[in-house]
């Protein structure tokens, strides 16, 4: 089932055309690797899907219905979540507190609302178990490895029962062993029927998990093909423009 369809999306910032007539679709349980050089339009595209920007022209269908998001909250309510590289976690809070931030489970004592930590720890533990991650709910995030931090960030999307998860550079700046951990998390999301878009510069990581690869160059979609029918060499050539289109 096509969960997300982008039809002829264009976006201009003044005279600059950041996206030019991009059409792309995404199925549940599919991992799409979105690639392109800096300034190719990846971030703009993600921000349009997430409701940060509004497209200049074109339409978005989500679950076969036309949608228009004016702010990120609206996209989130529908089930589209973005995990940003640096903007996701508060280091001084526990994993569970981070997952439940703004959605804390509370107990009412008259007028006073108390955070129900034991319930939050329990639910967070289940989420980490689902993700097959060894992250401890009551541990502070600053004590954690890069892989565990990604598990916490992705854990937030599990809580909201997201149907589409957009990951912005999930494997940048972490060690090789942790990359494996993060890629495993992505596979777990896929197995649970969630559509994943991964934006990354790291070719091997993208090829390790993606079903399909889409390449943007100067705002135009120059490739959208199955990962097994492509190769890192071809994608590199597409990004740089050595190959015009594939």
């Amino acid at each position: 089932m096509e969960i997300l369809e982008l039809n002829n999306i264009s976006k201009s910032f003044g005279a600059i055309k950041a996206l030019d007539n991009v059409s792309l679709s995404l199925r549940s349980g599919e991992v799409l690797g979105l690639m392109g050089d800096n300034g190719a339009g990846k971030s703009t595209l993600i921000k349009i899907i997430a409701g940060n920007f509004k497209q200049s022209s074109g339409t978005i269908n989500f679950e076969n219905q036309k949608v228009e998001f004016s702010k990120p909250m609206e996209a989130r309510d529908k089930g589209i979540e973005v995990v940003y590289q640096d903007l996701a976690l508060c280091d001084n809070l526990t994993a569970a507190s981070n997952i439940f931030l703004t959605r804390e489970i509370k107990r009412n004592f008259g007028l006073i609302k108390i955070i129900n930590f034991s319930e939050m720890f329990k639910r967070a533990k289940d989420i980490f178990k689902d993700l097959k991650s060894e992250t401890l709910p009551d541990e502070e995030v600053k004590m954690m490895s890069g892989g565990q931090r990604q598990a916490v960030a992705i854990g937030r999307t599990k809580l909201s029962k997201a149907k589409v998860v957009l990951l912005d550079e999930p494997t940048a700046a972490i060690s090789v062993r942790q990359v494996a951990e993060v890629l495993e998390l992505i596979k777990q999301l896929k197995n649970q029927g969630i559509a994943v878009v991964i934006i990354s510069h790291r070719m091997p990581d993208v090829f390790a998990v993606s079903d399909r690869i889409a390449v943007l160059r100067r705002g135009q979609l120059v490739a959208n093909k199955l990962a097994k029918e492509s190769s890192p060499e071809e994608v590199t050539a597409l990004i740089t423009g050595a190959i015009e289109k594939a």
Partner: protein
Amino acid sequence: MTEQTLEKNKKKIKISNLHEIGLLIALILVLLLFSFTTENFFTQRNFTSILRSASYVGLIAFPMTFVLITREIDISVGPSVAWSGLFFVILIKWYDFSYFSSAAIVILWGILLGYFIGIARTKLFIPTFITTLALWSALRGYSLFVTEGRPIAISNKEFRYLFGGDILGLPTVTWIMLGAFLVFWFASKYTVTGTNFYAVGGNPKAARNIGINVDRVKILALIGTSLFAAIVGILFVARVSSGNANLADGMEFDVIAAVVVGGTALGGAVGTMTGTLLGCVFIAMISNGLIHWGIDPDLNKVVKGIIIFLAVVINSNVTFKSNSGGPKED
């Protein structure tokens, strides 16, 4: 892996309490030092006196802990206390307001002042250090101008006994402070509002991105210090039976020193109410003990300056290094 993480976890719990335990030990050492070197330090009367001054400082130090945690600062609290007390007395003496309505007006003033500092920070992007520095000068200056530097006396025995005296052997202000401590301690640990202070201090961008109203959280923290400065102003009047423009001189220093000695980081994100409570007692005990040693009050300030410097050194080098340092690579 799990065992390893558990082990790591145990260590973390120890480290996060390390500062409070260390401070408690320092407190006991200082207590012993003054007790054995002076005659009148280890007396019930003197302890009551220490508790009293720790309580006035504490009432403002608890909200100040939240302010520092959200990466802001409020240095206007000393003059704010003096002006609030004076305003309270002026309303009663010059404008014939009742004690109750005067107190209500002064408390409202405190809330509005904090709101103003918060709005200046979040909407006009003026650092709180600058706004409160301006207020620090303006409030003290205006207080001196209005009174021509002379205290304005009031006489009301009930008011003095009720809010300036003792209840069950402890100063009234200490009971109020302990009540405030429980509220702030509870808020910091078990409420969404408390969690939001830590979240905003930990990563403001993430907090905003996740959907926390960062501006509102900061404004709320800043209302806290101004509100409690107003309350302490009224309680000071009850103690000394007058409004005085020179009251609470240097109090902002004692408050911030107590919070920092208590383990709150000036850079935000880290801090506990228990630590702040211990910090207040520590600062009050040192000030008191130095007086018993017969050290000049001006030199007393020098010693306090050294203590706050050492506290920050310990804070940022020992506690920070073992307890923080961002994401860890394994």
